[in-house]
């Protein structure tokens, strides 16, 4: 159980990036955090990852406070952040160097197989496409078998086709060991495809504004009416989070525009 209790982050320059954020994520659950820019959703993820420390409140994983990067918590950034001087295989094995060589090689090979990059093991990162690079980053985070995997807008830099492909791919990978996933995104479709639960955040100061259950059967049909219904609830919550209350009768128009996040 990952618990955020009244978490706040005020930067030394006085900017309150996050205030009173409270969230509970159960084992194996997929929680997607959405919100407009400046709502502190990336800050939230950096705090959970241990890269930054909260100025208020606490973050605990199974009762253990998180104040620094933790071996059970993995992270995938918006950019692949591969080390350019290591081959794809060595990048994937980066977090396994304390393991015996045979075990490391076996686990790296298996993980590369899982992200369909086994034929790229020996190439440099510069030779990968954007989608391949992000899959390598996913493999690097998953190969250490984290209990919690954090993903900060992992697919936002990819083209639409690659993005949906990787969303499905992520769910496949998740099904292997069912780690807890916390995904930050500004793409509502992505949120509804991935999430068990969607946390909507509001800006200035950032806080969790609403939580929406997405209890749709998997695999999810992006065209189904049920999918649209959840999407509309998220978009509504986003509009309300930005103090743009939707007037009765205009809900559908707003939702179908699907652009609430781009203001």
């Amino acid at each position: 159980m990952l618990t955020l209790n009244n978490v706040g982050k005020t930067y030394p320059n006085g900017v309150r990036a996050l205030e009173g954020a409270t969230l509970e994520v159960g084992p194996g659950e997929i929680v997607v955090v959405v919100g407009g820019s400046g709502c502190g959703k990336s800050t939230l993820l950096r705090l959970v990852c241990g890269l930054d420390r909260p100025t208020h409140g606490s973050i605990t994983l199974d009762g253990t406070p998180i104040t620094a990067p933790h071996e059970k918590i993995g992270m995938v950034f918006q950019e692949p952040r591969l080390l350019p001087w290591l081959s794809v295989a060595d990048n994937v094995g980066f977090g396994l160097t304390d393991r015996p060589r045979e075990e490391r090689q076996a686990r790296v090979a298996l993980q590369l197989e899982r992200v369909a990059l086994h034929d790229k093991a020996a190439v440099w990162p510069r030779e990968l496409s954007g989608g391949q690079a992000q899959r390598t980053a996913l493999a690097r985070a998953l190969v250490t078998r984290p209990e919690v995997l954090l993903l900060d807008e992992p697919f936002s830099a990819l083209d639409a086709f690659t993005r949906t492909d990787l969303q499905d791919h992520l769910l496949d990978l998740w099904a292997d060991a069912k780690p807890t996933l916390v995904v930050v995104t500004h793409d509502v479709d992505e949120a509804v495809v991935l999430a068990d639960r969607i946390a909507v955040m509001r800006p200035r100061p950032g806080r969790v504004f609403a939580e929406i259950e997405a209890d749709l059967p998997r695999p999810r049909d992006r065209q189904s009416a049920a999918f649209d219904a959840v999407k509309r609830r998220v978009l509504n919550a986003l509009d309300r989070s930005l103090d743009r209350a939707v007037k009765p009768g205009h809900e559908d128009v707003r939702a179908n525009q699907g652009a609430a996040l781009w203001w």
Partner: protein
Amino acid sequence: MSVVHVTVTAERPVATREADRSARLARLARPALGLLLPVGAALLWEIAVRAGLSDGRLLPPPSRIFQEFADLYRTGELQRHVVATLLRMAFGFGLGTVAGTLLGAISGYSGLMRRLIDPTLQGLRAVPSIAWIPLFILWLGIFETSKVALIAVGVFFPVYLGVMAAILSVDRKIVEVGQVFRLSPPAMIRRILLPAVLPAYVVSLRSGLGLGWMFVIAAEFMGASEGLGYLLIDGQQLGKPAEIVAAILAFAVLGKITDAILAGVAAPFLRWEDVVTRQ
């Protein structure tokens, strides 16, 4: 159907073999193109002197310079001077590189140390290094120590600056990857910082080496009994332009060879670089 098949299989190897041959030719032709200008100029000068258009006294033709090289080689003078200069360079370059790398790493890694030592070093860097010669001679004598010290000073600054700047410009995003994987400080240096600064480090070593060659001449001008710089002075005082040009050429060759060695040693470690020149 079968005809098409046969022609395709028969043509393929020929085409690739031809492509191989032209690729090999291109590889050979590239340095040859660089030789065109100096060799052409030398040939023209040789012809001009032979034709009596000039007596070639102040600028001897290639044949006379070659003769000078042969004479110096036969008497063992060339080897003696080259070895003396190379030894000074090796010690000076080694000393300057070690000091520059250490101090550059310290002030790149620690903000406190940077504020403490960098202003002083930048102040010293502003002194033209030749200005140290009188002091070094007073402190270290006129023999090898003062010469090595001068070369080391010349090598030190580009290496120091290069290492410090390289460390300061390491991408925070890559460092965060190391943090997520909970690298200890030594592991962070070995696995993230060192590889990240390596390309810039090699460049700073090469510019340090270039400055080292400048300073070795300055050092040998300040009273040496052997070395290529001594050969230059000797040629000037005895009015032997062929000896001067021979020494200059020797410098050019040594400088180019040492730089190529440095670049060649570094190249296998930098194959990962995503650069324009790699096609």
